[in-house]
């Protein structure tokens, strides 16, 4: 089932010298079973993969394949039914928050009663950082997100894209080394999405966090990621693992014209197509 690592064998791993980097996330034999009205169904079945320091990995698969479930188990939001997850060689415990890990939701989870500034500063505030120290970091985060002039606005006054920028900054201000993202731009229109890709690429290419990014959007995965892990339709199993050797810095519009983008797009498209057909056959 699983293709040899690095589909395009002729291509070097684009971003990270794989052998040298240490493993940040290790998922081993992960399984998740749900009980729905007495019937058990398998959401995730025997998934194993690793994410190395500084890698941007996209977890790609058809809707309902359990990719968000995997991410939530990595984040410790959801108990697992089998297997192991290690972050920096420590087993992930459900309900225990790892301060090195940041998480960005698909759904809007901003606190609507807090202003943009107060939302972004939330993590620092509850960590007990004094107001004066907080103000400087919040102000620079607001600027980095391109939200100057909106610092005092409430989320209801912002567009969907701006809200997701605030959510991103609310997580990034805590300087997580590992970033888990659950289809963070899934609810945005195409244009806003491209702008968010630009923002995220700029940040990531500068700071090189270790990222695990869940998406069902192939174009998005190819634009952002240095590696794509393709999951099968339900139950989610590992199907293929690709390196995306598009040079950086990337531009979200220009990448679409590269030969590598086109080659991988059509290959993965067919592979995904098989999974969609399998879903329908069920």
């Amino acid at each position, binding site marked *: 089932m699983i293709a040899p690592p690095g589909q395009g064998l002729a291509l070097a791993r684009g971003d990270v010298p794989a052998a040298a980097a240490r493993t940040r996330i290790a998922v081993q034999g992960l399984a998740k079973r749900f009980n729905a009205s007495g019937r058990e169904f398998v959401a995730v079945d025997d998934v194993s993969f690793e994410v190395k320091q500084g890698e941007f990995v996209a977890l790609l698969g058809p809707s309902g394949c359990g990719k968000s479930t995997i991410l939530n188990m990595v*984040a410790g*939001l959801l108990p697992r039914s089998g297997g192991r997850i290690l972050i920096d060689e420590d087993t992930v415990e459900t309900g225990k*928050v790892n*301060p090195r*890990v*940041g*998480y960005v*939701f698909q*759904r809007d*989870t901003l*606190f*609507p*009663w*807090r*202003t943009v500034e107060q939302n972004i500063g*939330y*993590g620092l505030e*509850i*960590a007990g950082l004094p107001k004066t120290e907080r103000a400087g970091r919040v102000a620079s985060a607001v600027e980095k997100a391109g939200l100057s002039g909106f610092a005092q606005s*409430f*989320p*209801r006054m912002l567009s969907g894209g701006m809200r997701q920028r605030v959510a991103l900054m*609310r*997580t990034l201000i*805590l300087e997580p080394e590992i970033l888990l993202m659950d289809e963070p731009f899934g609810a945005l229109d195409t244009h806003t999405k491209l702008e968010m890709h630009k923002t995220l690429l700029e940040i990531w290419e500068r700071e090189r966090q270790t990222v695990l990014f869940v998406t069902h959007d192939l174009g998005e995965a190819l634009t952002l990621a240095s590696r794509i892990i393709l999951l099968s339709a339900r139950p989610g199993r590992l199907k293929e693992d690709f390196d995306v050797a598009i040079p950086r810095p990337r531009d979200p519009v220009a990448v679409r014209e590269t030969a590598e983008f086109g080659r991988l797009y059509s290959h993965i498209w067919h592979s995904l197509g098989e999974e969609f057909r399998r879903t329908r056959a069920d």
Partner: protein
Amino acid sequence: MSNSRTVILLWQLAILAAILVIWQWGFEWSRALLPKAYVPKILDPYFVARPSLIWQSFLRLGCFSDAAGFSACITGSDNNLWLATLVTLKNTWWGFLFGWASGIAAGLVLGRSDFLARVFGPYIVALNSIPRIALVPLVILIFGLGDLSKIATAWLVVFFVVFFNTFEGTRAVDRDQIAAARLLGASEFTVLRTVVIPSALAWVFASLLPAVSFALIGVIVGEFIGAERGLGKLIIEAEARANASEMMVAIFVMMFVGILLAIAVRSLQSYLLRWQPQFEPSA
């Protein structure tokens, strides 16, 4: 142009003038012009007084009729208009405050604990099914004719409104917002303080207006049934003496008090809930 502000204001003033004119002279005119059977009884000044009489009663009750004796009147008569209004407002305030505070506390506790919510659920439903007005004589029996029984009545009415709003608000907290707070490092207590309570407060603030007007209703009803002073007492006394104009004075004062409280609460609400797309006060 027909719905410009000026036109609307002119219409409103015209209607007011028409009401006042018919109220003042309508009964005489209809008696002079119509056969006896067709004279509308509702216009009889014996029942509804008339604006000029109401104004005179207002001056008398408000201690304005005797310029020299204003302070003597204020201190001398124990149920002049000002004292009655202040007493009713004071009792409304305390009843509202206790009802609101206890409603929030109970709503938060039961909203956060499934166990307590299930244990107390049937009792709350049962108590809430009693028409609150039916309890007023009991409250007066327990707390006496003084102000305490009015505060207790208002409390009874306000408590449940605020309780149910807070309870629902605490239940309706977005689970993803709680998860987000946890992932940003919030402890259980911090989640309660920074997510659950602010989120539930939206519902609590939305219950402000009904809570205030219910408190006023509770106090007035309490004063009807047994009291020493207050606007409700003024009405009951006027009824006993068949004095419609005094009754009308008290009713108008209540109207103004109600309007002022509503304006104050609405501006407070729109400040406290300024972050919300739209809020709808629920009764």
